[in-house]
């Protein structure tokens, strides 16, 4: 390359205008000097800290680099809500419990818990010798402080509800009506935390692994003031890793915390979290070895599906169609709703449109959510959604239209402004038109506006997604109670409400589960109140040397504590 350039330059020299070599240097020199000036001015501060990348191979350090995919918005556990911040926090913070690779809670900061016979009072005992990264012990007061801080109306924590829904006195305090003394979170001494719940909730122990339930040290938080959690050194850690570098737009560096109680079982010593938003770039970086993990979709799923680097799972999220019974009287006919359920090809939807690891929905509560005994809920209930059957769907639809007076109205499908959402809308439109003979037009709105229209009941047909707050069918099923603010389609069945209410009060957890199984049967199989479409999935490129990769199916995701690096 170099020699060729030089030759071209030389060839230029003679000729009519004869620019000499010296003149060329003059012209070029100005540019070079400018670049050099910028270079020296810039290097000192604007280039991101030279994060080691995959480096450290010489010392035998086990390091992985993951793609966080988006900016890190907030590392204060009492206010944060986004999945990127929570991925980071999950690795540098520890709650009372932590989710194991199969989403079951195992003691982390807690040694164990005693649960009263009415299943309402939880008494946690902390482990001996657990410490913050500044050397202070982790105490029961740290949990009490952080939880109350999250509930404080002044904090305006968006996830306060994840505490207030379950803990006695918390809803009132959070609403600004009650007093902080009435919140049933009490540190009895440095090692003992007592919490009283409003109703028996077998899944609640798993929630103590959720980030809003992390501890914070009062003296430290107050000392840092506005600076708290803004930098890597304005936060203290009690998790398997320590944050050594943190830039909200460039990423994080996390190194193993040797003082963590289970450090002996933490295999990977260094985790780099980078931020690459562009899919093509992230795949290029993966292939060049600069990333060891990144999420993919679309064409790349098709390309890598059979590669050893491909990894996918569904998480606890369902996307489902909601007919608005109040807006379109025809939807009050159960045959029409059943026609909706069997009138679109879920396999085609996930394999041709989504291509992101999602699976066709066989019911409303997604795969993997706990059910009776060792079974998952889905295994126990079996499919409640009918198979795709266009002929039967058309028959049911025509029958329903006839029963309702023979009019087949124009129906507006509410969609939102996102390329995948547009594809889904087009797919549903053509399926329902071709298979059922419905008249569908699509209304695309910004996502925010879509939520608003749904909340106000100003839609005819839409689809919605719901991500589990906790590992229990109730996080999905209570949405369909008559009074639920998320029941946007106007579905109301006293039998269903009754089953949900009973389940919420039930202290016999086996019976409770049975009530919820019955409820899903009523909701999906009998009433066809909704047409579940798919269980949302995620597909990753993952270095095959990373074993035991855990990306939790609810709450925060990437949990490097469990990962193993081979070779």
């Amino acid at each position, binding site marked *: 390359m170099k020699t060729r350039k030089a030759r071209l330059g030389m060839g230029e020299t003679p000729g*009519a205008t004869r620019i000499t070599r010296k003149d060329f240097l003059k012209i070029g020199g100005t540019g070079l000097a400018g670049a050099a000036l910028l270079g020296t001015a810039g290097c000192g501060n*604007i280039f991101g800290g030279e994060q080691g990348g995959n480096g450290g191979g010489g010392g035998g350090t086990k390091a992985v680099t993951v793609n966080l995919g988006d*900016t890190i*918005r907030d590392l204060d556990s009492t206010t944060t809500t986004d999945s990127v911040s929570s991925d980071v926090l999950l690795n540098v913070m520890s709650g009372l419990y932590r989710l194991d690779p199969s989403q079951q809670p195992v003691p982390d900061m807690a040694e164990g818990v005693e649960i009263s016979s009415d299943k309402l009072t939880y008494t946690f005992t902390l482990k001996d010798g657990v410490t913050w990264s500044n050397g202070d012990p982790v105490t029961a007061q740290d949990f009490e402080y952080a939880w109350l801080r999250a509930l404080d109306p002044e904090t*305006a924590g968006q996830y306060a509800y994840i505490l207030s829904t379950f803990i006695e006195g918390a809803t009132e305090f959070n609403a600004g009506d009650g007093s902080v003394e009435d919140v049933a979170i009490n540190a009895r001494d440095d090692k003992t935390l007592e919490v009283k719940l409003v109703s028996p909730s077998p899944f609640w122990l798993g929630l103590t692994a959720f980030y809003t339930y992390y501890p914070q040290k009062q003296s430290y938080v107050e000392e840092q003031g506005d600076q708290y959690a803004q930098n890597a050194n304005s936060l203290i850690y009690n998790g398997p890793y320590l944050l050594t570098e943190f830039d909200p*737009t460039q990423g994080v560096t996390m190194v193993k915390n040797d003082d963590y109680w289970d450090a002996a079982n933490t295999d990977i010593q260094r985790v780099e979290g980078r931020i690459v938003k*562009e899919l093509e*770039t992230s795949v290029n970086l993966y292939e060049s070895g*600069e990333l060891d993990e990144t999420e993919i979709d679309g064409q790349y799923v098709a390309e890598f599906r059979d590669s050893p680097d491909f990894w996918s799972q569904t998480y606890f999220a369902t996307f489902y169609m909601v007919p608005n019974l109040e807006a379109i009287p025809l939807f009050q006919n159960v045959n029409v709703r059943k026609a909706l359920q069997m009138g679109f090809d879920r396999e085609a939807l996930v394999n041709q449109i989504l291509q992101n690891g999602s699976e066709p929905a066989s019911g409303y509560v997604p795969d993997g959510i706990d059910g009776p005994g060792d079974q998952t809920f889905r295994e126990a209930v079996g499919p409640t959604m009918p198979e795709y059957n266009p002929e039967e769907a058309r028959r049911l639809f025509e029958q329903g239209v006839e029963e309702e007076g023979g009019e087949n109205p124009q129906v507006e499908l509410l969609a939102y402004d996102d390329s995948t959402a547009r594809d889904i809308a087009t797919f549903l439109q053509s399926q329902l038109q071709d298979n059922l003979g419905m008249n569908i037009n699509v209304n695309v709105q910004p996502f925010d506006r879509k939520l608003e229209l749904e909340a106000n009941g100003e839609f005819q047909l839409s689809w919605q997604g719901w991500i589990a707050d906790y590992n229990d069918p109730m996080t999905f099923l209570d949405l369909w109670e008559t009074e639920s603010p998320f029941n946007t389609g106007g579905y109301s069945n006293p039998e269903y409400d009754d089953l949900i209410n009973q389940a919420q009060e039930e202290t016999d957890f086996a019976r409770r589960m049975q009530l919820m199984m019955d409820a899903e049967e009523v909701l999906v199989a009998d009433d066809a109140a909704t047409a579940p479409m798919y269980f949302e999935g995620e597909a990753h490129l993952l270095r095959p040397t990373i074993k035991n990769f855990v990306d939790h199916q609810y709450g925060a995701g990437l949990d490097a504590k469990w990962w193993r690096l081979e070779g």
Partner: protein
Amino acid sequence: MIRYVLRRVVYMLITLFVIISVTFFISKLLPGTPFADDKLTPQTRAQLFEKYGLDEPIYVQYAKYMINVAQGDLGNSFYFESRPVTQMILERAPVSAFVGIQAVIFGLVVGMVLGIVSALRHNSWWDTLAVVIAVLGVSVPTFVLGPILQYVFGVKLGLFPIAFFESWWHSVLPSLALSVFVISTVARFVRSEMLEVLGQDYITLAKAKGLTGLAVIIRHVMRNALIPLVTVLAPLTIYLITGSLVVEQIFAVPGIGEQFVQSIFVNDYAMILGTSVFFSVFFVIALLLQDISYGIIDPRIRIAGGSATVAASAGDSRGDGGDGDGGGGGQT
């Protein structure tokens, strides 16, 4: 001269005031809120609005914001929990500026060489090559060019890093991607201006006097051909150093352009306003400098009585200035 500058500064402040006000109200008209979450309860929403002062009447919010801006405080981001907007802009703007200025310098050097060569070798295959490059550079969008550069130089040849912003080497591909547009713009301009100047009588005169080819090119042709370039280059530079969403996304460069677009999508009012204020201060100061420098270059502009004639007379003065300069050259 001082009165002239003072008057420009006053106009500048008025312009800024109008820009900030308009942006403030437009940003409030954006659909949605900064707290778009399908699980948000009305109660928490009310708490958040109170915390961020969004529950107050819009004129109160406006007054508070203007008072803060006057004191140099752009407020805190909604999206990045309580992070000061000023701090985020100051961290990210230099990154975009570095990549942009580097692109301008590189583009200028290469573009001028291409332009000069194709003008001097008019209708040769050099000329054709330069024209083809110029057309490609203007018409191939960066979201196509960026990934191609990334794939060829980063993945295949391994000459430069694929993405991120950790050393000077990381800035090469993003700057290159941006510079292609500069190269082609500059090359086209230089070429056509030079071709025009080369045909002027005073060039023939200069040659007739026995000046060497080089002296003619440097002293007479270049000097006159490059003046219009300055007018094109100023807005181009500003455009480039305020960042490019596409290039910053593709190369994972943490710059201000990406930040600005992102803030609009998530209704981060403070960030939308902060970046707008920052950009407009930047633009307005650049225009001020341009006006002042026109005044210095061409005294007729500031003496011409009013100020409204600035743009028009600046345009007119180019041709005149060229002739004058040419004459001056002839005398030596």
